[in-house]
């Protein structure tokens, strides 16, 4: 058994998130909690959030996001892959 303290971050269980409703109304109601508008560059992103580079909406997941995850931006219909940016944060890249 691997000592939990030595386990790599990517192997640790992912945090889970309960998504509350937002005022985002650009997709059908049942999907609305998965998106929110970003309130400017100073608006921090949670570990379960990533910005769509195409339409700038914040995509939210029920679990912590990690490199290699695939997410879908319903407002602009872009398929995205989560990657680690040079500054260490997670960002989404479009998969054409």
């Amino acid at each position, binding site marked *: 058994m691997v000592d939990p303290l030595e386990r790599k971050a990517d192997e640790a269980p992912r945090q889970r998130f309960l998504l509350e409703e937002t005022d985002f109304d650009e997709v059908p109601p049942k999907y609305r909690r998965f998106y929110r508008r970003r309130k400017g*560059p100073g608006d921090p992103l949670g570990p379960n959030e990533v910005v769509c580079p195409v*339409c700038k909406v914040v995509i939210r997941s029920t679990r912590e996001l990690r490199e290699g995850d695939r997410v879908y931006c319903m*407002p602009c219909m*872009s398929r995205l892959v989560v990657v680690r940016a040079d500054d260490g944060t997670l960002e989404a890249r479009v998969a*054409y």
Partner: protein
Amino acid sequence: MADFLSMYSIQHWLESCPQGYLAGTAYGHGPDEREPALVLENDLLREQAIGATVQLVVGERCALAASSGLVNAAPDEASKRFLATQTLDEARHVEIFSQRLLDLGVKKGEMEDTIREHANPNLVRFAEVLLEKVDRKDFVAGVVGQNIVLEGMAFSVFEMMQAAMQEVNPKFAHTLSGTIADERRHVGFGENRIGSLIAEHPEKKPEIERMQKEMSYWMLATFADRFRNLSAREEIRKLRSELSGYGSAPAKWQGADLSALEPAEMERLLADTVLKEFKTRLGRIGIEYQTPARP
């Protein structure tokens, strides 16, 4: 590819747009919302609002002509269907901005003369560059010109206007919110569909790059006209500060407070934001951004 294209369905558009954020609206805003009384009563503010709205009508008429013209040039059924929904979006934009002209007191019979009088000639040239590609049924260049250059510009312009209007003119701000939501789909289609097509047609790149450079120049010239030739600037600024809601919250856009910016600073912020977006979007689909001349 089949799955990717199947996202462009009329059903998705119906659920997101008419049954979603447009439900319960009239011409894009709350049925009871009105233009601020001061804008309707003051000739200077009213004239300025008419001038700005005419540019939106001109831009949207171009988008309507382009998206409808591209339907028959699209290489697959899903793209045709998406462009059909976009055509309706653009027709709606033409209608809601024309309705705003009526709300501002332009008479129906004077609409075309008002548009002709206020339309910025640089914006008309911008539209002509795009529509020439559409007339030639050049799908790849047409979609880049329409859904990346024109829509990319509209996306930023609408966002900036919406931030500026949020407190002082909720009716117009709501009208703009719906168009911003529409633009998200349009730029998404531009990038996602062309991202794959450009890889199949690399020979199209030089022509598309020339088109982007030319359209960008006419766009910058339009911005320059709007921001540099503001007559009675101080008086307008003073009048705007008398609008209900003014100053209740900063009109924040791209980290700047729009109400505190000089016109030259606002022009620079808008131009830089749009050009930076062009560069990023075009780079993602494999097209090299061309720096336009500065008017």
